[in-house]
């Protein structure tokens, strides 16, 4: 995909200038680090706190611009952004500790008010026509075109530093992310590690600011880890994988925005990340939609095969049977293909009769399968019968009716299938 994007952005035979290459490398490492750090934000459910911090960065950019006397010096602006981002996180903690306001409202308050303050400040600056202020709104939605090679190197170095920190404290962060109570009981400074992780997320949000912008930089921290989570259950794999997804998303966004005039980078990065996520949601092994669909289909198929075998065992008492007889007794969408599979696996074999009509009977192997299935069925029936006695013993007036738990529609379906089973097995 990245190759396709690059083809689109750079015509064949065109060698990108040094600056473009360095900016691309810087943004790539930003994307990588954001993915890695974001894993803990997602696992610790701090995604929205990161969003609040991200929206607060705009205020810091404006303040740093004013304090720096109108210089557009990237480290200075990012320093300002980091200080307001951390102030926003602090405000979240203080609101939680000192007021009755709950987490969600606190996040909304910090996010909305700090963003409003940032907009007020930036509008005020631009209304007064302070020289050099023209590019400040690039921090809103991100725009990498204005980055110099030196800027990109700083961003890259910061990113690699955060990744190194995460790698260094991998054991502690993982423990706190998955089992904070156990970590606390084992004597780890959980609160400290938690705060350190949140600050690391704030740093990452700030570093990602030039690439993705204040409004959307959270996506760079949230979406790649979520994508990586689809592919693996292990943190050791999830971290580099999230980094890789972040890298690809960031590079794609930068490439497209440099090819299309006046297109902000942030939204493109987010869309690239979302495309990766959508693909992962569809094709990831085990958790992906495709894998689950196949699994469901296999279950249905196995069930239909078993049902056919059961019916065949009953029919065979009267000698060979036709396909139509069998399917009439075991209807269902999957029955037809289940029949084909049983024939192909030689569980059912053809019988040549004088009339030349096609008749079938169970092969030895098929009979064994069917017998095993009915044995299991009988065993399960025993278990459920025992459970019924158990239920009678436990049933008091406090036990809710099954309709309340399963829902009326599901209950009706159960009743109908039970009635159908009774009438089907009754005469036999």
């Amino acid at each position, binding site marked *: 995909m990245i190759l396709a994007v690059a083809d689109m952005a750079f015509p064949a035979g065109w060698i990108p200038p040094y600056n473009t290459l360095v900016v691309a490398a810087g943004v790539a490492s930003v994307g990588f680090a954001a993915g890695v750090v974001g894993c803990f934000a997602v696992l610790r459910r701090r995604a929205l706190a990161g969003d609040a911090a991200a929206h607060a960065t705009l205020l810091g950019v404006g303040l740093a611009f004013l304090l720096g006397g109108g210089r557009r010096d990237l480290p200075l602006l990012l320093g300002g952004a980091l200080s307001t981002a951390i102030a926003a996180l602090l405000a979240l903690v203080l609101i939680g500790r000192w007021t009755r306001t709950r987490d969600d409202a606190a996040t909304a308050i910090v996010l909305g*008010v700090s963003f409003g303050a940032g907009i007020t400040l*930036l509008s005020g600056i631009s209304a007064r026509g302070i020289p050099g202020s023209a590019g400040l709104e690039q921090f809103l939605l991100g725009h990498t075109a204005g980055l110099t090679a030196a800027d990109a190197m700083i961003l890259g170095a910061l990113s690699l530093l955060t990744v190194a920190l995460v790698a260094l404290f991998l054991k502690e962060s993982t423990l706190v992310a998955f089992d904070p109570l156990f970590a606390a009981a084992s004597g780890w400074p959980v609160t400290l590690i938690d705060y350190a992780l949140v600050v690391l997320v704030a740093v990452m949000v700030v570093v990602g600011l030039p690439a993705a912008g204040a409004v959307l930089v959270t*996506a760079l921290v949230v*979406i790649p880890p979520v994508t990586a989570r689809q592919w693996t259950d292990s943190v050791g794999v999830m971290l580099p994988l999230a980094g890789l997804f972040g890298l690809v998303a960031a590079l794609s966004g930068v490439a497209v925005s440099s090819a299309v005039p006046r297109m902000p980078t*942030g939204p493109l990065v987010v869309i690239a990340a979302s495309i990766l996520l959508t693909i992962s949601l569809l094709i990831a092994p085990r958790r992906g939609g495709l894998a689950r669909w196949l699994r469901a289909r296999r279950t249905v198929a196995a069930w239909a095969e078993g049902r056919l075998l059961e019916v065949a065992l009953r029919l065979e008492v009267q000698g060979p049977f036709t396909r139509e007889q069998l399917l009439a007794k075991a209807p269902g969408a999957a029955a037809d293909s289940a029949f084909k599979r049983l024939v192909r696996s030689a569980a059912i074999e053809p019988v040549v009769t004088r009339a030349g009509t096609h008749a079938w009977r169970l092969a030895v192997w098929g009979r064994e399968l069917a017998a095993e299935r009915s044995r299991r069925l009988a065993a399960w029936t025993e278990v459920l019968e025992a459970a019924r006695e158990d239920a009678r013993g436990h049933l008091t007036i406090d036990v809710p009716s099954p309709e309340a738990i399963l829902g009326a529609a599901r209950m009706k379906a159960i009743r109908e299938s039970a009635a159908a089973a009774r009438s089907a097995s009754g005469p036999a």
Partner: protein
Amino acid sequence: MMEFDSTHLWMHFWAIATAATVSAGCALVGSFLVVRRLSLLGDAISHAVLPGIVLAVLAGGRPGGAGVFLGAVVAALVTVWLTNLLGTHAGLAEDAGAGVAFTTLFAIGVVLVSALASRVDIDPGCVLYGILELVPFDTVPIFGLEVPRALLAAATVLVVLVVAAALCWKELVFTAFDPAAARAAGLPVGLVSAGLLVATSLATVASFEAVGAILVVAMLAVPAAAAELLVRRFHRMLVVAVALGVAGSIVGYLAAWRFNTNAAGMIAVVLGIEYLLAALLAPGDGIVARVVSRESLRWRVACEDRLASLWRAEEGDAAALAPRTLLDRLAQARLVFGGRIVPGAAGGLTDIGREEARVIVRSHRLWEAWLGRHVALPLDHLHPPAEWIEHHLGAEVRGRIAADLEGDEGDPHGRDIPPEGFPSRPADAPTQ
């Protein structure tokens, strides 16, 4: 950006009226969101309506028209559906799911706006922070009066919201505070939640043009959260939230006018200041009230400890501790000033001081005696709880404990329990 120009007062009036109407609607819906812990629904929806609006405009709808409203509401519903889908099918935590869904939709919206800039008259910046100042220039005639279209839309939505809230008041409140009980009572909880979702979308879309995507979040959550700190009853919270929202809009607009900056941003800042003031000054459990009550307790304890220590010194079995900490010194000064301690280096108790000190020591020793008799703590464990509770026992409790001890005159350490004393404070004593 605005200049102070009295010929345009009407323009400012319309802009303020629009901001106030939008804010009232948001505060109304926001109150329900805040008590249901759904404040961030506004965040998600306000980001996600952008592609809906852009597509509706592209399909020929006019900004502020009914078609655009519809597009935005549909986009809002799609976000919530997507978030739920990510939650149920991909097993995402709710915050991550919302983060994925709304940033993606918003990003698609921004890309659409940028790509179709020539065909769609929407500025990516105004999508984020609105153009309240330009609202008065797009008007429709109502009874011969040129009313801004945005105001008309916001007012319509406000009326719809108020009527809906009034009609479904009981259901809304029941569902908000106890969804499980509401479901058990047979209320259509899912339907009420869906209704709230549509109401949030309506309020968001009506506000969108005036204040932009992100400041809607502030208008939804901040006045409601501030009102929740100020009052305890929900119907009062609604009224206070709406009042705070309207006041914040007016003050914010005027401040933006004065300082020549973005009005929507300034409104959010003023709302934030309102919340800060509410958090600080809320009666009962505001930060200031809690600090005052905690510090006054600390202060009273320091004074009483000082008195008791002097009383024990007079009793003769210990030397009075000299005040060491700053708080002790201040307490000493205050007791001297209040006529409880004789001024000067020797500094014994006055008669009033002795009366008060005796009551404290009596509380202390009664509690030690009671604990010693009924709880069988070791002797060296009796002092700390007594040291704490001596400041809180009233005359009635002291009487009951004394009756329980049945004239047992001493405490477990073998010291006398001083009598209650009557009157405990002479009539001519100076009040504190």
